[in-house]
């Protein structure tokens, strides 16, 4: 996998974790796991900034530009469909043998793409 794509995936996952902690999961995390949610959010925020700053300028600029339009900047391609805009991606991309060795974007919505089966 392209290292920058991996970083983008991790940033997205961390943002998901943060959102879930702040909203849906707060009660479960506090009552079942004894987690200090506010402390956890602070930790995640610092990690997200750190990882964003590790991206090269070209990728970071695109990441921020796409992020102004869409909360989810990286989306999976499942069975040939971009799961950001649900438009079919070109067959050549969807079936590319190199899969995630390059950074690719949806031609329709501009999101970064991650191919999974």
């Amino acid at each position, binding site marked *: *996998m392209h290292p920058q794509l991996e970083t983008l995936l991790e940033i997205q*996952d961390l943002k998901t974790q943060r959102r*879930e902690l702040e909203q849906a999961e707060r009660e479960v995390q506090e009552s*079942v796991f004894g987690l200090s949610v506010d402390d956890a959010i602070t930790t995640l925020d610092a990690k997200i900034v750190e990882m964003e700053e590790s991206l090269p300028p070209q990728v970071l600029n695109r990441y921020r530009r796409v992020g102004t339009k869409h909360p989810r900047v990286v*989306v*999976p391609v499942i069975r040939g469909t971009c799961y950001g805009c649900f438009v079919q991606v070109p067959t050549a991309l969807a079936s590319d043998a190199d899969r995630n060795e390059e950074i690719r974007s949806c031609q329709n919505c501009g999101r970064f793409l991650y191919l*999974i089966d």
Partner: protein
Amino acid sequence: MELREFFTEDAIKLDLQGSGKDEILKELIGLLGLDEKSQGILFKMLKRRENLGSTGIGKGIAIPHCRSLVVNRLRVAFGRKTEGVDFKAIDDSPVQYFFLIVAPPLEVSNQYLPVLGKIAGFVKEPDVAGRLAQVQTPKEFLALLEEKAA
């Protein structure tokens, strides 16, 4: 919606081999049948969740969990390490029973939190830890889930 329907026999391992937290997490992830790179990313996310605070909830039970882009549906796994492993649990006891839960960031059926809650409820029943120690086969584990759902 009952817990039994989410588990498959091949995602149940009654003799985990790992001796540390990281090894156990990797072994549980290995039960999901993901490609190597996805496993690596999932491991990082689970580690990050553990770094926020252990998912060991006491009485020998842990529920490692996270959401990640590298899975496309809710997945669960169960593992047992009879002698226990230091998982920095809330009660500082070794952990013997592990319930792994992972889900994609956007999950159409929205079952992640309900499943998390159901597992938490299941493991808090007084006799469950003892029963988990006695199961001999994945089928018996599944039968226990069914019994407790009744």
